[in-house]
């Protein structure tokens, strides 16, 4: 039996009828048409489906959509503002932090959470923070470089 839930998604209130068993990841993709959130596994390992729930990075495949009722969700589609890429998006582009791009939205959402709590992470801290995001293409080296670069950009933007 479906029931309506209301979510704030990328700043817009959305009401959608969902089955109680529906995962947030599926509702975002199938019902809200936010297909930038990807699904790469079924055991909450890969992190491709990472979104922000009330500001914290979560794997949206571990959240039932009904659990997110009333919460604020941010997805990769909500990262750019006023047509400008988020610093992480810019850095991933500049540092070749992606190849096939399938894991990228999830990695960016995880990295955004990291930089919100730790604006100057060390390389080891970055590598630890993205342990829950698998990438099979890049070997992570340029992902780490991109996150470092974004951290620098965000720090200088904050000072300005």
């Amino acid at each position: 039996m479906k029931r309506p839930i209301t979510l704030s998604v990328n700043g817009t209130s959305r009401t959608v009828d969902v089955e109680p068993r529906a995962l947030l990841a599926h509702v975002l993709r199938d019902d809200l048409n936010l297909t930038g959130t990807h699904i790469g596994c079924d055991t909450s390992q890969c992190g491709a489906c990472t979104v922000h729930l009330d500001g914290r990075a979560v794997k949206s495949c571990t959240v039932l959509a009904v659990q997110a009722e009333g919460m604020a969700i941010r997805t990769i589609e909500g990262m750019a503002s006023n047509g400008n890429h988020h610093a992480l998006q810019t850095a991933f582009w500049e540092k070749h932090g992606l190849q096939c791009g399938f894991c990228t939205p999830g990695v960016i959402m995880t990295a955004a959470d990291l930089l919100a709590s730790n604006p100057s992470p060390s390389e080891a801290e970055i590598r630890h923070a993205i342990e829950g995001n698998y990438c099979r293409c890049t070997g992570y080296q340029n992902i780490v470089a991109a996150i470092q670069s974004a951290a620098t950009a965000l720090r200088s933007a904050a000072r300005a």
Partner: protein
Amino acid sequence: MATLFGSGIKRREDPRLITGTGLFTDDVKLPGLTYAVFLRSPYAHAKITKIDVSAAKSAPCVVAVFTGADVKDKLIPVPCAWNIPGSDLKIPAHPLLAYDKVRYAGDGVALVIGETRAAARDAIDLIDVDYEPLKAVVDPEKATQAGAPLLHDEVANNIAFTWVVSGGDAEAAFRDAPVTVSQRIVQQRLLPTAMECRAAVASYNQGTGQLTLWSTSQNPHIHRFLCSVMLQMPEHKVRVISPDVGGGFGGKIAVYADEVLACYAAKMTGRPVKWTEDRSENYKVTTHGRDHVQYVEMCGTKDGTITGLRTRVYAGLGAYASTAAPGVPTILHGLMYSGAYMIPNIHGTVYGVYTTTAPVDAYRGAGRPEATYLIERLVDLFSREIGLDVVDVRRKNLIPKAKMPYTVATGITYDSGDYHTALDKALGIVNYKQFRQDQVKARQHGKFLGIGVVSYTEICGLGPSQVAGAVGFGGGLYESAIVRVYPTGVVRVYSGTRPHGQGLETTFAQIVADEFGIPIENVEIVAGDTESTPQGWGTYGSRSTAVGGSAIKLAALKVKEKAKKLAAHLLEANEADLEWKDGKFSVKGSPQQGKSFADLALMANVGWNMPAGMEPALEASSFFDPTNFVFPFGTHISIVEVEPDTGEVRLLRYVAVDDCGPHINPMIVEGQIHGGIVQGIGEALYERAVYSDDGQLVTGTLMDYAIPRASQLPQIESHYTYTPSPVNPLGVKGIGEAGTIGSAACIVSAVCDALASFGIKHIDKPLTPSRVWAAIQQAKGGVR
């Protein structure tokens, strides 16, 4: 205009991918879409005695249910497309859905089409199947032994083929050699693990009879061809679209039953059908890689000259022969037994073996990592046997630059190479001599450091079509391009080959923009849709830039040639007097009188004033077939520390010197190397697909199958030498697989070097702490 060839510009693919606006197959939505879910066998080997789908058919929101009995007379079985010659290859029928017998856990048994994914999934549980379990066999060597359960009645001993490669006189070489070393090597089964699982969206237009399939494909034209065969539809009524694809690594080459059944269901129900694999299903059914049991030996002289190499290889094929499977452990493996060395006498026997496991096919490197690994392990063992340094033995046997092009004993000819320079460069970067001294000191302080040195070469840039035919590959290996110039001087390029993460939209655009002297923004690369693109043969075997990029270059040159004739006509000059400079054709000495590419694009497209006999418009196509494969090479060196009390391996340093000829986009090249090496590190240290004896995939999810994580890796130090290939107009060699080909052997070599004082010469990968610890205990004479 600055040249773009050699420039590490940002990728044009990225803006859509970093904003979540790419289009992957599962993102495709169509009106009236239905969803497919497969019932798969829980048994590795069993007879099916009953299937009852009546409850599923009448379940809510179920559109249709199909079983093997429903489709076996309607669809051609899943084909194998690499009929290797000179072997006794047996390819038993591979039904799209099993109807009498299942042969691996995951074999498709039924298909439910539902109004929603959940409805289809629910209905799967309502299907009643009676199985009569049979014995499983998962090890390719054991499967050939007397008494092993037989998968296919017509395949004795489960041996699909016996393939032999031979050059020189290996028997005499081994008989006469003063030194022989041998080793049994298990090259474990691996799971390719592209982050995007497979998916398909099929739509059939009842009015036109046109089928459209969106598919996670590395080779949409091959899938168009094979789908048309299996569905018995004319090929021109089948359109395959490979949109953004989330990695392939070989797993998206094969034609599978699943996508074809989605097409069939779309046709039968009149509704579009979407099927999306989940990861557990992906691990059960999408092709696996490697799975060799190898008996290998090398012989030579006491001064370090290698004189012979012999192998006997049991290559697991899984339950059925997948699309390219027979070619992987043979043509792509055995022909590379000389590696980077002069080995005059080679003999290899490869048995392709059916086991009750998922089909095995190409996985990044496909046959060449398995060859490089055994060769490099043997060079290490041989060096230790004669008491010489592993580097000195390599240097002595590497094929010298002066001998290129060089024909090895297996009969293939390497295009170009400078192996010694790459070796010396890598040794210099790590300061090898200094390391050996540091290693001794560290050992005195109880630290076990090791160094691994690997000089690899590999065959890629597949390849001449004539050779493809000669080795039984069921297709061509040329590549294609159409370059179409619009009246405003912008260009669309239609590429036959289809990237899936390699950045080729950028690389290809660089080639074209350079040729025409136009901004790269004025070039669009179109690939992946068989409706618009010319016949291509896919992205695998590190071939797309060497072959596809060359086709694009040649098509662009044809366009430019025509533009030059038009320019001469318009300038009332002799063509011979024209020069191409600053993006214009102009008469030598009168640069102000030139015709730019945009001028010529307009004039050609309006056709107002063409030279006599010249057709209007500016467009050309090219089908480039190379004269040979390309052979990238390099030296990789890793440094590890092993903790003997726990068996833990720490990778301290990884230095790669790779040579893939000139780089069109160095940033992209380096990215390919990073990713390739890390997959090899995964193979060396973490990854192993494990089947239980009764044929259950124990490592069936990402919780159990250990691909590398960011925290486990050091910074990779990438360096290069640049040796052009003479076999294509760009001079480039492939780089998609080279990292993987060199790296697994490099890490294992380093670990065995660290543990040399225990007398340990070889440990089978992956070198998990338990395996390393057990090897140390055994070497110490303790319990294993």
